[in-house]
């Protein structure tokens, strides 16, 4: 199977940039990063189908070059349709999940006023070992009553809302 250097480089760059964006704290960058990585994966899947330029339906030329085309007798000389079908499926799935993720990121912004990944409250509580101190347990209880988890839109309130000290109750 012949490789295509340009495509290979593009795939590599997409994975690299996507991974970088995924490691950010901002949700929207995470979503874009995931989109870029999945584009990279789709391109890679397409490359697995062999070189471009073969006839789509029927051809009188010799057998196709990809491993898949060579394995199926009816496919000699034509482009391998299977990776293309798989890429289409993968695109549709990623599209749907990305839309859901964007909606969730918006919901997160509505609830917390920050476009950032929130720290896990229970982790922070365990780290502080608050359960060993009786007063701390009371605090925890108070937090739970205070934080009534209303659906009001708080808007952007800056850094004060984020970070591990945010008094969120374990749900």
């Amino acid at each position, binding site marked *: 199977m012949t490789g295509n250097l340009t495509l290979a480089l593009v795939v590599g760059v997409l994975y690299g940039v996507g991974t970088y964006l995924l490691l950010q704290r901002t949700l929207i960058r995470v979503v874009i990063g995931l989109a870029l990585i999945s584009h990279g994966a789709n391109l890679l899947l397409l490359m697995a189908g062999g070189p471009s330029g073969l006839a789509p339906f029927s051809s009188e030329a010799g057998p196709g070059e990809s491993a898949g*085309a060579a394995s199926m007798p009816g496919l000699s000389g034509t482009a391998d349709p299977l990776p293309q079908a798989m890429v289409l499926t993968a695109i549709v799935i990623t599209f749907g999940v990305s839309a*859901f993720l964007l909606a969730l990121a918006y919901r997160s912004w509505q609830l917390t006023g920050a476009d950032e990944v929130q720290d*896990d409250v229970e982790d922070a509580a365990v780290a502080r070992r608050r359960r060993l101190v009786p007063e701390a347990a009371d605090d925890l209880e108070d937090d*739970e009553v205070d934080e*009534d*988890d209303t659906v009001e839109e708080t808007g952007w309130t800056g850094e004060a809302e984020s970070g591990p000290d945010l008094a969120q109750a374990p*749900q």
Partner: protein
Amino acid sequence: MSASLLVPLPVVLPLMCAGLSIVLARNQWVQRLLSVLTLSGVVGVAAVLLYRADTYGPQVVQLGGWAAPAGITLIADRLSALLLLVSALVLLSVLLYAIGQGVTEGRRTTLAVFHPCYLVLAAGISMAFLTGDLFNLFVAFEVMLVSSYVLITLEGGKAQVRAGMTYIVVSLLASVLFVTAIGLVYATTGTVNLADAAVRLQEAPAGVRLLLGFMLLVVFGVKAAIFPLFSWLPDSYPTAPSPVTAVFAGLLTKVGVYAILRTQTLLFPDAERIQQVLLVLAVLTMVVGILGALVQDDLERLLSFTIVSHIGYMLFGLGLFSVAGLAGAVLYTVHHIVVQTTLFLVAGLIERREGTSSLALSGGLAKSAPLLAALYLLPALSLAGIPPLSGFLAKLGLLQAGLAEGGALALTATSAAVLTSLLTLYAVGRAWSDIFWGPVAEVTADPNPYDTLTIGTKTTPVLMTAVAAFAVVGGLTITVIAGPLYALCARAAADLLDPSVYVGAVLG
């Protein structure tokens, strides 16, 4: 009935009824009845499939009549039919529990999405067990995961959104890696049919096979929550309503384990390096998971860490790569699905009654609710592996296989399994003494009185308690039928170690 009719039913039936359920969304009782009937049907079909697969060999269907390498294959062999039956039973029980708890229909939303999503989840899980095609496995995972995304964020509160975000990003990243792995498998072999790929991968260079084996291990490792890819699980699972957590805890990670079992035994049967890595990962998963459970204050988080820890036992069985080891792993999977689901259902009952799952804030339940105490104690002891409960039998099978294998790595893993067992007893025992012993604590008020999840009611609804009791009895039944069940697991394990059975059934 012929196999071509039976095998697709566990996938097609819930999918079609999910559509019907959306149409009938206005009437809650019709929706509930439809879901219960559908899942009962799946249980029946799965039981017939298991009988046929065990008696007549793997049941194979080529979808659309396209021959094996080109078309999509569905196959029910002993392992997949067994897991299909257990998961269908669990799905049905948890559905009844959810109906009892009243989380199935939102108070604030007009569209009742719980039932359709739950049925799609059932279809995805069934398809993951039944498929004989790598790309179809990817689609099955996505069907399952997308409905789990909706179920985990159903409430839409702050905690659910935060947890759902982590869960979705991690799952999506694993899915992208899965697509990458599929692309590489296709480039190497020119097929995504598992049986065909199993034949053709033998001709591939050893390095390429090792790379593909590790890539698929990472992909399914994220879904199965093995060390070091597990940290999303304890963060996200406890925020969902307890029936949703219960079904995720029981089934979703086990689908990942099933995929690891299937791909490693079928595609990479001679990769000794992967098997050694599996044993090391098993030790780390068991020990790190249970150490995480020891420091938790929240019962559901504690149980979530025990899921991670006990996934290690299944990896341990696979890493041994012997009939005894794999049989132990399969039996352990069955036992763990039932017991872990039961524990989460009981945790839901405790939360319903006490208004909190925090260990520090509860106490004295053994006096005020003795039935609840019994329902917690039996599966908890089973999880820790106290004889004669099912956990003991499953662990015994694995430990015997580990000792029979010998070798430094296998013996280390065996001792780690014993240690983890003891630490599990400590973790669930600590939860027992905090929640059920001591002075009777006051009921915590429901922090979100307007959401669908009503807690802190001081009551335990009859349906929820009955389902939890049924699940506990189900766990005890495993002990009663342990002999025939282990024999079945051993036959399934022998099939796994001899890929020619699977390949022959698919390629004919």
